[in-house]
């Protein structure tokens, strides 16, 4: 009973604090504090509800239990992180985005191909590409190569469509100006069209970060060596070791946010001139 009352108190305090903060003039620290308070309140309520209602740890472990498990099994978590993120997701991300970028630049020279590839690319980007996972696992074996292949297939089309669109983002005036400077194709590409395409390219890169992690983890459900985040999640669920599953989810959340945040920071540095960044 005490735990439930504590949870209710935490809820009211958190809510009141946020209502009060939201009335203050909008500064950087307020904009940061409000979501943090919301998140902390949520975790406290979770802890109190699980303890108060005596929910079995097999269904939903408490945040403290997850934290303890996280600290106790850093070795396993690190090993899975290396297998899934560094070997599978990251190499697939680099290969997939890199090749999509090169194909987009090549396609850009042929308007006929471009008009054909854009609708097809848009169509494929909406398909459940993740279904290719079992096939690619069959082709490339159980180790990280097949996971990288799944990631390549998943990130290729979103990246391609965005880059092709970005390369069309210059207007006639700008291109004409370059032509009056007697700029060749490559000068035009590097000095005008690629910089102008950067907001689109980074949009593709950001979409691809989440796809890469999902692809690498889900591909492990179809077969993997005895390490990797997807493998650990599916086997730990079978052993009802839900605290370990949640620890893996925490790792995935941190990695996902850091990956996305890193690309967003890079975007800020590269496209500082764009209206959306000057805000």
């Amino acid at each position, binding site marked *: 009973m005490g735990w439930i009352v504590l949870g209710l108190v935490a809820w009211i305090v958190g809510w009141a604090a946020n*209502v009060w903060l939201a009335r203050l003039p909008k500064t950087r620290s307020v904009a940061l504090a*409000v979501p943090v308070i919301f998140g902390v309140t949520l975790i406290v309520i979770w802890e109190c509800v699980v303890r108060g209602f005596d929910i079995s740890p097999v*269904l939903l472990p408490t945040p403290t239990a997850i934290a303890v498990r996280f600290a106790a099994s850093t070795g396993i978590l690190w090993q899975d992180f290396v297998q899934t993120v560094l070997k599978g997701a990251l190499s697939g991300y680099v290969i997939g985005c890199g090749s999509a970028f090169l194909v987009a630049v090549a396609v850009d020279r042929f308007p*006929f191909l471009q008009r054909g590839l854009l609708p*097809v690319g848009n169509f494929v980007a909406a*398909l459940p590409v993740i*279904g290719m996972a*079992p096939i690619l696992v069959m082709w490339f074996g159980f180790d990280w190569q097949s996971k990288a292949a799944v990631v390549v297939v998943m990130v290729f089309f979103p990246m391609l469509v965005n880059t092709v669109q970005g390369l069309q983002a210059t207007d006639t005036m700008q291109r004409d100006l370059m032509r009056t400077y007697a700029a060749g194709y490559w000068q035009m590409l590097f000095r005008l069209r690629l910089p102008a395409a950067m907001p689109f390219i980074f949009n593709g890169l950001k979409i691809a970060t989440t796809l890469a992690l999902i692809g690498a983890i889900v591909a492990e459900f179809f077969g993997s060596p005895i390490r990797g985040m997807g493998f650990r*999640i599916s086997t730990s669920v079978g052993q009802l070791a839900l605290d370990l599953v949640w620890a893996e989810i925490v790792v995935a959340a941190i990695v996902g946010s850091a990956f996305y945040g890193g690309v967003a920071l890079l975007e800020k540095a590269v496209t500082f001139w764009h209206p959306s960044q000057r805000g």
Partner: protein
Amino acid sequence: MRRAVLPVVAVVAMIFVLWYAAAVALNAPWAQDRAKRAGVELSFSELVADTWAQDKPKLPAPHQVVAEIWKTTALKSVTSKRSLVFHSWITLSATLLGFAMGTALGIALAVGIVFNRVMDMSVMPWIIASQTIPILAIAPMIIVVLNAVGISGLLPKAMISMYLSFFPVVVGMVKGLRSPDHMQLDQMRTWNASGNQTFWRLRLPSSMPYLFTSLKVAMAASLVGAIVGELPTGAVAGLGARLLAGSYYGQTIQIWSALLMAAALAAALVALIGVIQRITLKRMGMA
């Protein structure tokens, strides 16, 4: 029209040519191996014919997949467990339920965010953060946990679809509900419109184009969620189960037919929303 269709047809034809060529290249080692053991020498045309007609090829040729789809849809009764229509229906029902729940949740959150400053500041960052978590990865846990508390069947899969599909709706609707500019809002104020009236007569109608765009994304995401949600349920029914069973038994043709069926389903659902969008916007005088 010809300008738009011809390039697409050319690209699709190119994909098919590449597919057939890849089928020859990938299946050739197995064909050669078998021929060597039988002690015969394969001519090139025999090799090609063999690679396009294997039982368990590495990459089945398109016509094999089409034949398999025809066999499992048209020639099987719909209620049979071997009918692809039966499996598609299971996946489709989970997709649609999840899509409906996700859309409802997304719109409700968006309305809250637009009208409540506290919600805007506290919930919005977490909604964005929630999508950097690879939710599909915890699909098996959600399924198992919900099964343990007695919720099974359609609902767990629909929950995963919901989680994937609410995000595009929230983002699109927040943008859409905020799309009326100051002039229009001021006009409503000069008419002494209440907050309710402003919402129903101005904000909601002007958010429709944004809503439909995000519904298309949400539908595609919801189908992915339903398919992945079927993977850990022990592979009983649904397109995801067909994928998993196919990968256990090396039935590549079965995997590809399930995959193509999922693609067709996604295309049909997105096209359906496109049609509804065109009709609605036309009747509202926006398109």
